[in-house]
């Protein structure tokens, strides 16, 4: 079983648009949306959800004003400035990290420690196959744990159904959810764009991929937006033994397909769709071959 993860560092470069098209082209696979914070893949795949499970993680401290003696111990101890006011003090859930120190120190035992239901995760069926996805509730934390849970479920599902590929749409950035999505995956594909931001963010997310010793390839989207930047990215890929899987033009057809709730490969099988298909074939070929020695050396 193999896991392919689509990443970008920078948001809005086309991760989800491409993942959706790849989900259309792939066979024998489980589809997984690991952007649990702002998931969008389901907007294109419109899956039928047959199971909703709560995701509980961490706890929330709640001060009971009737038991609180206003001693100020919790206020002084909290390193997140999450406890505000004195009469009575109140925990700001947006700042509370769930560390339990206030609960442990409160001499009046006036702080309730309640499990936090911070999201839901779903098992669904899409027109391209089974899908696991989630929605972290707005303003919640612990997205890394939810990502890890989804990956575990995707693997279990693939095993149960005898499927050999997990195709995952990743979150933007390089922090906790990206690390949870990336560690131990078989291959990362970075979707970038020829802009100063795209290039800068590509370099940081690539460094992270190499930090975790993950084989990585690059797709340059909106390639004709700036040829100098596109060439600089290509030179960078070459210098870092980074396979260039393909490039796509800056084309409104990608947005038009999204508005129709279709993948670009469904919306325009010729043209842009064919270009995406060629990239998918390159990606499969790359994944099937062992990495050349120079590439392995670059990964570290």
């Amino acid at each position: 079983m193999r896991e392919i993860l689509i990443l970008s560092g920078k948001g809005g470069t086309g991760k989800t648009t491409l993942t959706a098209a790849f989900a259309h082209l792939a066979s024998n696979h489980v589809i997984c949306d690991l952007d649990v914070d702002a998931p969008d893949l389901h907007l294109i795949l419109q899956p039928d959800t047959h199971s909703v499970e709560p995701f509980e993680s961490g706890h929330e401290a709640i001060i009971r004003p009737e038991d609180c003696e206003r001693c100020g111990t919790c206020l002084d101890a909290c390193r997140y400035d999450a406890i505000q006011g004195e009469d009575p003090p109140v925990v700001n859930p947006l700042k509370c990290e769930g560390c339990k120190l206030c609960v442990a120190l409160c001499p009046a035992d006036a702080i309730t420690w309640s499990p936090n239901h911070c999201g839901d995760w779903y098992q669904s069926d899409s027109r391209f196959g089974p899908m696991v996805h989630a929605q972290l509730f707005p303003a919640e934390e612990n997205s890394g744990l939810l990502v890890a849970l989804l990956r575990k479920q995707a693997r279990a599902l693939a095993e149960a159904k005898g499927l050999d590929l997990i195709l995952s749409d990743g979150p933007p950035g390089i922090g906790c959810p990206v690390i949870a999505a990336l560690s131990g995956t078989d291959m990362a594909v970075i979707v970038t764009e020829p802009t100063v931001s795209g290039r800068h963010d590509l370099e940081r997310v690539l460094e992270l991929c190499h930090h975790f010793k993950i084989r990585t390839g690059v797709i340059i989207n909106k390639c004709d937006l700036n040829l100098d930047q596109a060439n600089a990215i290509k030179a960078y890929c070459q210098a870092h033994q980074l396979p260039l899987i393909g490039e796509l033009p800056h084309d409104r057809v990608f947005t038009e397909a999204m508005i129709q709730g279709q993948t670009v490969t469904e919306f325009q099988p010729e043209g842009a769709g064919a270009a995406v298909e060629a990239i998918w074939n390159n990606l499969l070929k790359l994944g099937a071959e062992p990495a050349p020695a120079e590439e392995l050396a670059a990964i570290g």
Partner: protein
Amino acid sequence: MIIAVASGKGGTGKTTLTSSLVSVWPSPVVAVDLDVEEPNLHLFLQPEVDSETSAYMEIPEIDDERCNRCRACTDICQFKAIGIFGKVVMTFPEMCHGCGACWTICPEKAITPGRRELGHIVTGRFRTSDFAMGRLRVGEAMSPPLMRAVKHHLNSTHGQPSRDMIIDAPPGVSCPAINAVMDADVIVLVTEPTPFGLYDLALAQKAFAPIGKPMGVVINRADIGTREVHRHCEETGLPILAEIPYQRDIAEAYARGQIIAEAVPSARPLFDALVERITALGKTANPSEEVCHA
């Protein structure tokens, strides 16, 4: 006034907007990049850098001699950052959230705060404005502690800020985004008129509503999609502060790392009008303060 430029969906134009606002704002500001995972504002502002310092978080260091393996620390730690295996005590520094619970409660005083590098804080100047950013160390999972360190640095160096502050926030609607916008007086949500843009805008609205500060929307590439975002804003009472049309010259200037308000003259009036609308929205945030000033 503190203005946070945020979005649910990434790549909608937060940095484009922030850099242009900093450029056209009528007085010098403090421009802050709190997208510490992938900071980009400096690529557009190209500030003169004054300082670059490492930021750290406190994590436990255990004195093996003093520790009597009572397990008080492993019992309280909510992040699985300390473990006792047989007679061996181990810490997992990358799991630690730096809450200090373990060394606060250790009855033997066997734990002292050590440190883990979170990344860098860079400060400098863009023309007459101040500039600050955080840059997360690659491999570091937690961005909120570095964001707090950047804010703490600004508070200690700028005292009571007389200057307006413009914050470039990270994408998403979970803890990093919340941390970036929670101190703002006005939240500007940048979106695009597509199904992804609409869905993530609605998430952002829900996430930021408890902060209780006025929010407004900027629709970028306003003519590429449908009218659903406009309709959503109208239905939920979210004011549309500006609409930036899709123009190839804007996209190209952005690709080169240029400030749109300067590189594309036709776009300048849009940003001037936006400054006025944001300022007006800010006045609704602190009406009592306005009375005092009057």
